């Protein structure tokens, strides 16, 4: 496959699509599929035949606004229909070429206006199981350009210049990671894509894999060329069956098109990718635990150094990046690192995909430039808190992150700004809570999570999280004293400084951040034996008779 051949495929796919008057895109991501968008697609296809319309009905990946699903997008008019089902097929198909069906239309301009789609540029516009759809939107141009016109060093230079930082949560500069692996000595190196999206409340990786799997494969192939690897693994959660099946199909198609395998782009570059299924262990998102899991062992982390960049999979230099990081690579190579660096804030470049969930009107996936204020994301794009309730906190960063109160909504989202206020970017989950959530109970929820997910290798995490949980339960049940609170704070400090891996080191964060901003709720539970949100079931204190 050469660039000329790639252009031919793109041209003929576009010509094929241009034969139709309209394209009716039906969202078939996990969210919309659970509301039977597959039946909706069949109904639309049938209706188009019956009415003799010259339209193409296309299966696509996630369109983002899960709250309004199932979604249907008509191109080129860009009419978006919400809450669709098969019974509306006749009306919608009938309206094609004329006025859209007003009462079914989704008119949420403010939800889409401030979004900038880089990672999600194809989501909702292409059939995720058709590689030619991806190619028709400049897919694999970046890989073939890199292979024929750029040196591995040149590729790394563009990534470094882009300022891209790891999207899995750590925020480590991607260019620096790549150049470390490139410089590491050894003939055999590996590229690994971390798709073990374990943070509850985050689903951007699932969505990217389901909606645009070729983009991730292309990013991995470019990385492999840059660091000198010829073998890659994608580690995906077994809980994401649709992502696994679309990825399997995508790998097969890429091989058939000669974009994976030997002599890619008629060059000496060989690369292939295998899927490895996770088996439900949160800690496997930690890179050394992930390596152990791919090697078929228990997913327990090991101390670093040596870093995987030097000694990773089977002791070989290994590059591990997250799904969203790889999804950013092709556009950077296509449009230059400088273009990417033109978006975002001072030290956090580009865009970030967030999963907006919890007590918020427009739940779903959004992609915004770094530096956008939390307030804009929650109140404007997210449509605010529904049902007349009051905003209380937003939780970012999953079980390693923190809860931020309303006073913090004016900070712009970036790696550094979030750390400064006691939370982290994490993989991009953003869970909104209203006045019906008890912050002590929320902290206990997260600690219960890390306690269950602790691999048990190091004592501070294994025993510490269990003790934190016991103390928080005591507080929730109104049995705690102020001494217990002091103990809890001291314990947080110990776990933070003495745990082996990120899971343990960050496990006190939900406690520390709620203590920082919602200490009064802890005090209420302890001193007045009262849960301000009315969530915790505190029994009336037993009168002690003298």
């Amino acid at each position: 496959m050469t660039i000329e051949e790639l252009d031919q495929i793109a041209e003929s796919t576009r010509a094929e699509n241009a034969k139709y008057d309209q394209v009716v895109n039906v969202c078939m991501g996990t969210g919309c599929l659970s509301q039977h968008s597959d039946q909706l697609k069949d109904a639309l296809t049938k209706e188009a035949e019956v009415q003799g319309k010259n339209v193409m009905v296309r299966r696509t990946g996630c369109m983002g606004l899960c709250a309004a699903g199932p979604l249907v997008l008509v191109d080129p008019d860009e009419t978006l229909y919400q809450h669709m089902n098969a019974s509306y097929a006749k009306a919608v198909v009938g309206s094609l070429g004329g006025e859209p069906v007003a009462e079914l239309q989704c008119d949420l301009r403010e939800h889409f206006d401030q979004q900038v789609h880089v990672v999600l540029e194809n989501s909702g516009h292409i059939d995720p199981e058709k590689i030619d759809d991806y190619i028709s939107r400049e897919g694999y141009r970046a890989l073939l350009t890199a292979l024929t016109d750029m040196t591995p060093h040149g590729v790394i230079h563009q990534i470094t210049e882009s300022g891209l930082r790891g999207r899995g949560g750590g925020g480590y500069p991607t260019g620096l990671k790549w150049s470390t692996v490139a410089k590491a000595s050894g003939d055999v190196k590996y590229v690994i894509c971390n798709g073990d999206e374990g943070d509850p409340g985050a689903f951007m990786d699932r969505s990217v894999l389901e909606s645009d799997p070729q983009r991730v494969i292309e990013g991995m192939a470019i990385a492999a060329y840059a660091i000198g690897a010829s073998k890659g693994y994608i580690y995906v959660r077994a809980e994401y069956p649709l992502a696994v099946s679309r990825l399997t199909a995508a790998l097969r198609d890429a091989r058939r098109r000669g974009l994976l395998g030997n002599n890619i782009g008629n060059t000496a570059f060989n690369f292939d990718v295998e899927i490895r299924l996770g088996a439900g262990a949160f800690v496997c998102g930690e890179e050394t635990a992930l390596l152990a899991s791919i090697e078929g062992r228990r997913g327990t982390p090991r101390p670093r150094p040596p870093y995987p960049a030097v000694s990773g999979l089977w002791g070989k230099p290994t590059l591990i990046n997250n799904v969203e990081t790889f999804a950013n690579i092709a556009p950077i190579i296509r449009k230059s690192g400088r273009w990417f660096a033109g978006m975002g804030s001072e030290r956090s470049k580009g865009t970030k995909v967030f999963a907006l969930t919890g007590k918020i009107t427009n739940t779903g996936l959004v992609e915004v430039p770094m530096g956008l204020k939390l307030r804009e994301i929650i109140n404007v794009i997210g449509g605010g808190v529904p049902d007349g309730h009051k905003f209380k906190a937003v939780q970012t960063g999953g079980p390693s992150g923190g809860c931020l109160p309303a006073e913090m909504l004016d900070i712009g989202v970036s790696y550094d700004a979030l750390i400064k206020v006691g939370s982290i970017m994490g993989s991009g989950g953003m869970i909104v809570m209203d006045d019906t959530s008890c912050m002590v109970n929320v902290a206990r929820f997260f600690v219960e999570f890390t306690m269950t997910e602790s691999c048990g290798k190091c004592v501070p995490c294994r025993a510490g999280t269990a003790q934190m949980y016991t103390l928080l339960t005591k507080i929730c049940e109104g049995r705690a004293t102020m001494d217990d609170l002091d103990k809890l704070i001291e314990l947080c400090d110990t776990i933070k400084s003495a745990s082996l891996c990120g899971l343990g080191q960050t496990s006190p964060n939900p406690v520390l951040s709620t203590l920082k901003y919602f200490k009064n709720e802890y005090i209420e539970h302890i001193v007045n034996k009262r849960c301000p949100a009315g969530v915790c079931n505190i029994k009336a204190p037993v009168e002690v008779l003298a």
Partner: protein
Amino acid sequence: MPAFTPPPLPSDDKRWKIVNGTMRKNGFARHALIETLHTVQSSFGYLDDNAIRFVAQSLRVPLSQAYGVVTFYHYFSLKPPGKHTMTICTGTACFIKGSDKLLAEAEKRLGIAHGQTTPDGNISLMTARCVGACGRAPVVLTDGELVGQMTEPQMQDQLERWAVE
């Protein structure tokens, strides 16, 4: 060194051939342990002693290590699942939208704790750590099918349908 001969299949149940196929595809390499266990679980529904021994021997992995892997990962189950399975997502978004109450109600109705199966073997009650459909929280999987914005009456109806069929 004599060539390694994998052990014979435990029975003529055709599913063992599928399991063997996964191991063969991976050249009976030790690192195929988790892949193979996935195949066993998807073919048989769970992992019993017999299966773990067979896989461990075939891949030349110590039995202790194979057992260690099985018990480390939540996805693997040592017990056969019930005829029906209700999996309640307990991820953060679902928790904020009341999945803890759904779980408590289901436990109360079925008289079992999560992770267990009713004594008649009809319904298993499981929990999941986020299935990634947070936009539709609270989410419940009924026999693997994802149902979003689950309400308590809706869940009770489903359990009732399973109980009387």
